[in-house]
């Protein structure tokens, strides 16, 4: 009847209304009541970030100042984008950015995927003892100082070095490989793989260990061979790890330290080997231009951050995993 109808309809209306207008404050306090032990557990970490990372963060604004260490942040004048202009004015700005990105890109294609493949292959080794030995040995190069690795590499790539010997064996002419700009990226990325394959695979090995053995058993029962097992159980099992690490790696696209570059490059290979950090290093040796290097750093960070945001969004759409 009309009386009942109107009452029920107004009741419904009231319920919908309540959902829409439920105060945010109420939601938060319910959340707090339920989860306060968790927030408490996260507190030490949050405090850490506040003090040690957000505390000094004003320093990133040095990029916009004509910074004097004597007068500090508050005493140095702001110059807007001047420092950035100084960098981009150089005829070499584009080249060093391009080189940075290209080296990082190839490092991502090979340096990211090979450790995964290596981890998968290693996982298939049955002999426990052999497996352990391989694991231990392959992560050793990580600890060798850059100077030594570079020294070895300079040695091997000289015209009388072992790489030239091999080339000669196959009928080519021996030459100094580090004098050829076409080869620089290959040599550099190759040496990165050599040094970091084992170390980078550790995290994947750990992820592989966490894959539920029951899933494997189920797959075998269903008649799946090795390859199918890997495709249907293993890879999906470690996919979150892979995706997260990939996003993080994409977020380092502009970051390339100068130490190894400086040890391996020479003016003949500036064309492909001179990167942002080595260029800034050469400029800054005598000048301690804080504003300038801060600006370059800021630019790198901004691009990295943009890449991470994009990668994250794509990942969130395609897979279930994302950074935030």
């Amino acid at each position, binding site marked *: 009847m009309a009386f009942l109808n109107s009452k029920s309809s107004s009741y419904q209306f009231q319920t919908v209304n309540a959902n829409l207008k439920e105060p945010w404050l109420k939601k938060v306090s319910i959340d707090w009541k339920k989860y306060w032990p968790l927030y408490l557990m996260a507190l030490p970490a949050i405090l850490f970030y506040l003090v040690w990372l957000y505390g000094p963060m004003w320093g990133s604004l040095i990029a916009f100042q004509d910074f004097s260490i004597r007068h500090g942040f508050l005493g140095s004048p702001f110059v807007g984008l001047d420092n950035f202009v100084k960098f981009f004015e150089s005829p070499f700005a584009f080249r060093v950015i391009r080189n940075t990105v290209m080296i990082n890109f190839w490092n991502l294609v090979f340096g990211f995927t090979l450790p995964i493949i290596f981890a998968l292959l290693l996982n*298939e080794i049955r002999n426990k003892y052999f497996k352990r030995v391989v694991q231990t040995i392959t992560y050793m190069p990580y600890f060798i100082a850059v100077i030594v690795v570079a020294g070895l590499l300079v040695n091997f790539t000289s015209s009388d070095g072992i790489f030239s010997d091999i080339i000669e064996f196959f009928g080519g002419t021996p030459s100094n490989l580090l004098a050829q700009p076409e080869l620089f990226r290959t040599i550099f990325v190759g040496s990165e793989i050599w040094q970091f394959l084992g170390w980078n695979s550790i995290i994947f090995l750990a992820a*592989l260990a966490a894959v539920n053995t029951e899933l494997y058993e189920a797959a075998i029962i269903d008649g799946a061979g090795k390859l199918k097992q890997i495709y249907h159980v293993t890879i999906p099992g470690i996919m979150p790890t892979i995706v997260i690490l990939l996003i993080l790696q994409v977020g380092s696209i502009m970051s390339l330290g100068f130490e190894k570059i400086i040890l391996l490059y020479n003016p003949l290979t500036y064309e492909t080997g001179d990167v942002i950090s080595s260029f800034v290093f050469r400029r800054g040796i005598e000048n301690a231009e804080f504003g300038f290097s801060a600006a370059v750093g800021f630019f790198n960070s901004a691009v990295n951050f943009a890449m991470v945001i994009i990668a994250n969004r794509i990942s969130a759409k395609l897979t279930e995993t994302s950074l935030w």
Partner: protein
Amino acid sequence: MRQTNGERIFSVFNYFLMAFLCFVMLYPLWHVAMSSISDPVRLFTERGIRLLPIGDLTLKGYELVFQNPNVATGFMNTAYYVAVRTILSMVITVMAAYVLSRKGPYWNTAISKFIIFTMYFQGGLIPFFLMVRAMGLMNNRWAIILPVLVSTWNLIIMRTAFAGIPESLIESAKIDGASDFRIVWTIVVPVAQATVAVIGLFYAVTMWNTWFNPSIFLTDRALWPMQLILREILLEHAAVTSAQSGVAGVTEQPMYRMLLQYSTIMVATVPILLIYPFLQKYFISGVMIGSIKG
């Protein structure tokens, strides 16, 4: 277990591949080890692959390292820094990773963003230095430990691992009345032990390798970690530092320069290399999950 022919061939190939990789990877360390006991004069000129030490064997390189009085304290300091830092960092990171891996809490996304942002925008060296100073930590051991307690990268990886733990395990524990805190240490960590072990390794190794922060915050050499002492030995090759030698590396016993480079690397690296095998036992396959579920 029966293997198909294809699987057997693959297996053989795999073993060979691994052996080859081992040789290629082992070579740099082997080269350094052999060089560190080689005749310093010949070390100067010999180039190329080195499978055996060259010339007369000598322990002079190690002598030069260990006769420095600071090396012993350096080791003790490093042991201290590594132990304290790893324990503290792990506790904080594990807890934070657990919290952030839960789907419920409203603030998790905000906290994640808050944390990840710092991976991209940082203040730089001078503000960091001034911060440490402002906290009164100059020339204090805590200056080495506190500012690096949490690594965002490690935190994210651990979060990912914790997020992968079946909800059911945690649910059942909750039903049994366990607090979140207990759940973390009795269930989450053991189940994700492989990743936890790895992150512990990462924290330990970065602390083992650290020398730069100590160089700007610790003026008292008695507090220096071993890497910094070794670095100084290497760059200077004297018990007293560079102010007296002047003209860069011109004639300071250059005969021993190369030898010393190798022996310091050995001393700096071999101890940490010995740790990894002990952690490998945590990388066993996911037996745990199956058994608990049953």
